[in-house]
């Protein structure tokens, strides 16, 4: 402090002139002390500021970021792979419980040179892909189903011969990829993919969700300058426009028809409604979800749709659950299991805790419950399950708030514990299992659940952005429960409430369906029928069904429902969905030890017969006339990386710095500063006040 501020000078001036007042004020405010330690406090403040910076740096040690990326990449020799503008057009026809959807995307090869393009599209869960049409310039290519290797070979040969070719493969469950070869510069390509999706129906509302390619964020100040063939620009131009045309055929009058995330226009048609987007400038940046509800009094009954395929009749049956109001909730024992392994760290654990805390609030005093956390080890909260008294709930909530994510994911011991607890008289045991599902030994776990669950029911709640949905769904299936997915914190409330509404009323158990003849139907083991959640069965029958009855036990009493035949039927689509479900059942059978080769054979046979893209079959289309002169390079020279050998995918980057050197340097620096201050007595400053000495005897120690 070489130059005291004007204010300082005025103050000391005033104190010299009015010592009495100064003393009094000093007594109140301790100004002298402030002045004397001004300097050292500053250092301390500085040290604290440094510490805060250090802590902020520490917190910044972020986690892997992996945004899903749906879209298109052009492979071009020495140049980058660029995402190009896409127009998306969705047409759908909804008949009864089925939707036939066609997604058409248009794009242009802006790369110079001949490119191979790959694009991927997310589909609704359980969708059956069976059609592909590609238009390149004037040429139209129609896809044909082949075995995967066969299709790949056909495609590769055509590509190398300079022909326009395309290939649709299933990369993972619900993720399909289209490859296009020999697209000339500036050429326009249109790809249409046709698929079938089942309509969702819960709590009196029908819905259909069509996922859209997300539009990655783009920072115009940081244009991606890379021209390296390894990377794809997350480009957004003014394209990515979406148009939509949905025909909803329904004989029932509707009480509501709405889109959750888009503004829509609705036109009335003789046999239903037609839906368009209201905003012509809509982008494909969020999922399209259409929901409709029949008028009250038209609560869906069990229904049956069929289609005569010549040598067999295909039928789709919806088993409607009893209306929840008609059944008294039952008391039960609920065992909550929560995953606190390392992978749950952060948002997943927060969501899991929120979900569980909400689950606790639904318990009634007649219910019993317990809480188990597991990571490398497991730990039940109570020695045995306890009555859900308010103070117990409070105790459990406190336990939840103290949970931390660390350690491995050892699910089996915790599940085992819950499944093998001694039965509590007549109480139904429900196990609610909350995890992000990142396990490797899925097969063993499913087998164990199948073997040990007994009369208990298993409900799975998957957490986070990339849970192993397949495993969680299968686990709930084997456990005769329901799977619920909570992706975001905002979802927790609604999803858990809806899960609870299902599990608090007794479900129809031991279901059986009498088709009146020999039937091959899926799922082979009919799950329990929960309130608000109908079941779908797909059957192949020798002849037209007449009177189909589902029966089971509700609260120990016989229960039955008769399916009403829906006029009009669903057409051949029912056969495709039956095949899709048969394939899923076949693939599941591998879990229970059926030979993989045998499964493959049967899946391939079914897929070829019904024209479906599966793990083992692909759609391939080849144009007969070469489009690229053979001597010109397909723009994928440079690196051998661009050979189409499998399912390409893109990934974001992990956070790959800890910042420890800077943190260490800063904290050591602060350490030295503080140490120096501690050891070194600051030189006495010139005292101008008379009051300070007497007021602050400890000064100058």
């Amino acid at each position, binding site marked *: 402090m070489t130059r005291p501020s004007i204010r300082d000078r005025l103050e000391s001036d005033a104190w010299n002139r009015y010592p009495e007042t100064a003393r009094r004020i000093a007594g109140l405010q301790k100004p002298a002390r402030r002045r004397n330690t001004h300097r050292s406090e500053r250092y301390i403040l500085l040290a604290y500021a440094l510490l805060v910076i250090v802590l902020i740096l520490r917190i910044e040690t972020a986690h892997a970021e992996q945004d899903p990326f749906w879209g298109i990449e052009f492979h071009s020799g020495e140049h980058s792979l660029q995402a190009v503008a896409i127009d998306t057009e969705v047409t759908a026809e909804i008949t009864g419980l089925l939707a036939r959807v066609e997604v058409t995307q248009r794009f242009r090869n802006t790369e110079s040179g001949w490119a191979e393009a790959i694009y991927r599209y997310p589909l609704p869960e359980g969708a059956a892909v069976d059609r592909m049409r590609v238009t390149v310039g004037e040429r139209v290519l129609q896809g044909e189903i082949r075995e995967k290797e066969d299709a790949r070979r056909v495609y590769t040969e055509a590509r190398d011969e300079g022909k326009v070719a395309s290939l649709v493969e299933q990369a993972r469950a619900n993720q399909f990829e289209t490859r296009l070869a020999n697209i000339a510069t500036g050429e326009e390509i249109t790809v249409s993919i046709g698929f079938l999706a089942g309509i969702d129906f819960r709590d009196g509302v029908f819905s259909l969700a069509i996922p859209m390619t997300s539009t990655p964020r783009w920072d115009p100040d940081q244009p991606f300058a890379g021209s390296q063939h390894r990377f794809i620009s997350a480009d957004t131009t003014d394209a990515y426009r979406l148009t939509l045309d949905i025909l909803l055929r329904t004989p029932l009058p509707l009480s509501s028809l709405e889109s959750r995330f888009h503004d829509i226009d609705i036109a009335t048609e003789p046999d239903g409604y037609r839906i368009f987007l209201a905003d012509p400038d809509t982008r494909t940046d969020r999922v399209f979800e259409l929901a409709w509800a029949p008028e009250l009094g038209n609560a869906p009954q069990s229904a049956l749709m069929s289609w005569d395929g010549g040598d067999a009749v295909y039928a789709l049956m919806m088993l409607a659950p009893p209306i929840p109001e008609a059944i008294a909730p039952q008391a039960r024992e609920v065992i909550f299991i929560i995953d606190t*392994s390392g992978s749950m760290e952060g948002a997943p654990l927060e969501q899991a805790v929120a979900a569980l805390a909400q689950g606790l609030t639904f318990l009634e005093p007649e219910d019993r419950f317990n809480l188990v956390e597991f990571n490398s080890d497991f730990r039940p909260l109570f020695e045995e399950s306890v009555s859900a008294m308010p103070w117990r709930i409070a105790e459990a909530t406190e336990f939840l708030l103290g949970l931390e994510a660390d350690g491995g994911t050892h699910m089996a011991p915790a599940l085992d514990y819950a499944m093998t607890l001694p039965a509590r008289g007549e109480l139904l045991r429900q196990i609610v299992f909350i995890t992000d599902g990142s396990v490797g030994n899925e097969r063993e776990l499913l087998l164990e659940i199948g073997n040990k669950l007994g009369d208990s029911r298993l409900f799975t709640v998957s957490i986070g952005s990339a849970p192993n949905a397949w495993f969680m769904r299968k686990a709930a299936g084997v456990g005769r429960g329901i799977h619920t997915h909570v992706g975001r914190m905002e979802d927790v409330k609604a999803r858990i409430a809806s899960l609870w509404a299902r599990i608090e009323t007794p479900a129809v158990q031991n279901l059986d369906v009498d088709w009146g003849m020999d039937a091959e139907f899926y799922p082979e083991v009919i799950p329990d029928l929960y309130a608000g959640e109908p079941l779908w069965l797909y059957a192949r029958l020798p002849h037209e069904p007449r009177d189909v009855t589902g029966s089971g036990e509700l609260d120990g009493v016989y229960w039955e429902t008769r399916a009403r035949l829906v006029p009009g039927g669903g057409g051949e689509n029912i056969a495709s969905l039956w095949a899709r479900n048969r394939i899923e059942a076949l693939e599941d059978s591998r879990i229970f030890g059926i030979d993989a080769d045998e499964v493959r054979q049967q899946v391939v046979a079914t897929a070829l017969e019904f024209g479906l893209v599966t793990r083992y079959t692909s759609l391939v289309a080849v144009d007969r006339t070469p489009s690229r002169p053979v001597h010109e390079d397909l723009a994928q020279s440079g690196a051998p990386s661009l050979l189409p050998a*499998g399912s390409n995918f893109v990934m974001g980057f992990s956070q790959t710095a800890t910042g420890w*050197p800077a943190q260490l340097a800063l904290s050591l620096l602060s350490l030295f500063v503080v140490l120096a201050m501690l050891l070194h007595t600051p030189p006495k400053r010139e005292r101008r006040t008379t009051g300070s000495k007497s007021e602050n005897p400890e000064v100058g120690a």
Partner: protein
Amino acid sequence: MHLRRRVLLGVALLLCAAASLDAAWIPLKAQAAQLLIKRSWNVVASGQPAPPPWPWADTRPAAVLEAPDHGVRLFVLEGSSGRNLAFGPTFANGTETGEDLVISGHRDTHFRFLQEIQNGDRIRITRHSGVETYEVVQTDVVDSRAARMLIDPGASRLSLVTCYPFDAASAGGPLRFVVTALPVARQGS
């Protein structure tokens, strides 16, 4: 000296010491974890399924990465999470079993050696399936906000990813340094 001042300074001293230890712990942990992982890897090499390197670990070693030019030998883990990256370089999820390998590591611990890497350097990867030697052919700096990496299981290739610049003070920057290496056997063709 004031008693209060001393107390304040004492507290600040403790906090600074704690922060220093916390920072110093990061590279120590990075080193120590590698030793533990080595034990786990030796079991893998003998043909048994890999046990987690320590009982509460949520990952396991999937490969050994060697860069003889830089005297580096590292165990690469499965699962690219921030937690795993503290213990070792990690495979990008799903690439550990394919041929288009992507390995991420911290620029200030395990992958610090990448700042000295040059075209032509050799990198050896040992997995269950065998050993492959790669030669560095290219290095890029990309903006992780605007770019995505393309994984092609049909390609035989190794990519090492770390944060960039190497001497940035704070973690969390958007730039990434990507080293691309191709199998030596294919270099000639």
